[in-house]
């Protein structure tokens, strides 16, 4: 019973880390809930609070993937309550699982790139249901992978942690490759946008945007606001272009006919 409830909440937290409230998965909320399932809310509050403070310096910003907090929290709770390990030791053992959480995320994000073709087809047929399904499939993949890892931790305990450790050393090149490829896939997204938007007279604008980001992004003082600053420059160019072209149109339109006024 406990293990089923645990799998269910892990499933929900895994989805929540990117969707829903994006808050329930935070250790301060998740750990007490898991504590309630395992029968020790008090430890849940302590681990949750400690872990939350640890994470303050480790926010999911700028698209970077921090060590996975969902599995970190869930597994630390299992080890602390079920195996009666001290809090810091439980958190330490949970790290290997949180690395696998990261793998699960990478895997899902990669697989879902392939499923975009299915979404395209749904759009082609003006089929809202198809879009809903793509989103549901993705949430289920992510949730299931995490739930499985939580169950492994629950049943296998520390032995499972060691087995995963060995596996992750041996397969690290493959997972690293998936991660590297994952980081490259956005270029396909950019290429599709460019295919449509990039008129032949706009190559300079594209490279100018690239240069502006390279400049702001590599200066410590401005790197946090790179895209806002880039947008300022881009807006200036666009507004200038708009006003100039409107003027030209007006002048053309007023040309001969209104000369006499």
């Amino acid at each position, binding site marked *: 019973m406990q293990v089923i409830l645990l799998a269910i909440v892990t499933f929900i937290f895994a989805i929540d880390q990117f969707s829903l409230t994006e808050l329930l998965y935070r250790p301060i909320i998740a750990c007490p809930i898991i504590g309630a399932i395992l029968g020790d809310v008090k430890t849940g509050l302590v681990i949750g*609070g400690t872990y939350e403070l640890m994470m303050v310096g480790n926010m999911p910003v700028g698209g970077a993937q921090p060590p996975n907090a969902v599995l970190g929290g869930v597994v630390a709770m299992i080890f602390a309550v079920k195996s009666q390990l001290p809090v810091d030791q439980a958190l330490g053992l949970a790290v290997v699982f949180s690395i696998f959480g990261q793998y699960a995320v990478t895997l899902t994000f990669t697989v879902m790139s392939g499923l975009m073709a299915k979404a395209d087809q749904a759009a*082609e047929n003006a089929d809202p249901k198809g879009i809903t399904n793509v989103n549901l499939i993705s949430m289920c993949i992510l949730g299931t992978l995490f739930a499985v890892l939580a169950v492994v931790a629950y049943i296998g305990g520390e032995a499972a942690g060691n087995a995963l450790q060995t596996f992750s050393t041996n397969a690290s*090149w493959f997972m690293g490759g998936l991660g590297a490829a994952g980081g490259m*896939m956005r270029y396909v*997204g950019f290429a599709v946008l460019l295919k449509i938007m990039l008129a032949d007279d706009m190559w300079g*604008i594209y490279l100018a945007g690239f240069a502006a980001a390279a400049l702001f992004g590599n200066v410590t003082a401005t790197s*946090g606001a790179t895209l806002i600053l*880039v*947008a300022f420059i881009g807006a200036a*160019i666009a507004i200038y272009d708009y006003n100039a072209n409107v003027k030209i149109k007006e002048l053309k339109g007023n040309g001969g006919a209104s000369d006499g006024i």
Partner: protein
Amino acid sequence: MASNDELVYVDQTPAPALDKATLNKMVWRSMNLQASFNYERMQAAGWLWSILPGLEKIHTNKDDLATSMKHNLEFFNTHPFLVTFVMGIVLSMEQNKADINSIRAVRVAAMGPLGGIGDALFWFTLVPITAGITANMAISGSAVGPILYFIITFGVQMLLRYWLMYWSYAMGTGAIEVLTKNAREFTHAAAMLGVFVVGALTCNYGATKLGMKIPNGTKIDATTKETVANYIDLQALLDGILPALIPLALTLMCYALIKKKQWSPTKCIVLLLVIGIVGCAFGIWSGTYTALVPVPWH
């Protein structure tokens, strides 16, 4: 030609304004923006799902709905808590049947800058402060801690979502009249801004780096005065030529394959998967992993 080349909607009559119930529904749906997050188009399918109730009301013509769904399924990435700002503007343009290139350009231009603002507001300010207050309550065993944490962060988040949705929808609707008078000029300017932002994203989101450090004799460390191994860092060499050279090259490669060779995006993804995994087997890309083939440079 590929599918998303329609330029205007068949039905050019502006749709009636969206009612409150639909707008509210989309605010709630916006929470699942990242439901099908993926590396190729990031939040695209979640974005489309979030605005679908509005699109279905706006585009009663089935072909137009398909057109709209297709172009709203292109690369999209913004801050999940601020997305309703982009939604409001895009919906007001869809409702007035604006030129598709304009809608796309405005969408791309609006999504970029929000990321930094959202992170600064939420993850660097609100959450650390709230966590600082409530975590200690939790550690001392009080269940009020987590509950308070949830109420504050969730409340702020939802207020932002609602307010941005209504504000930007009203703003977009107000601005549209001026813009439709000079639609062609606006489209051109918006496309320029969009291309500019995609150029910036290529550099800013492009994280692909070489991990090759070729052993090259020894050197004397400046601070410790000890002899240490010397490496030639290939990525540093590349950065000296052009920062983010690899992201730019790979983007242009995909562009050429898609535009000139008519490759599908899926085919490009498979190619990148191979490049990524084979590259790591030989220790070419950066990252903390052990290469499959023992190589001197990783």
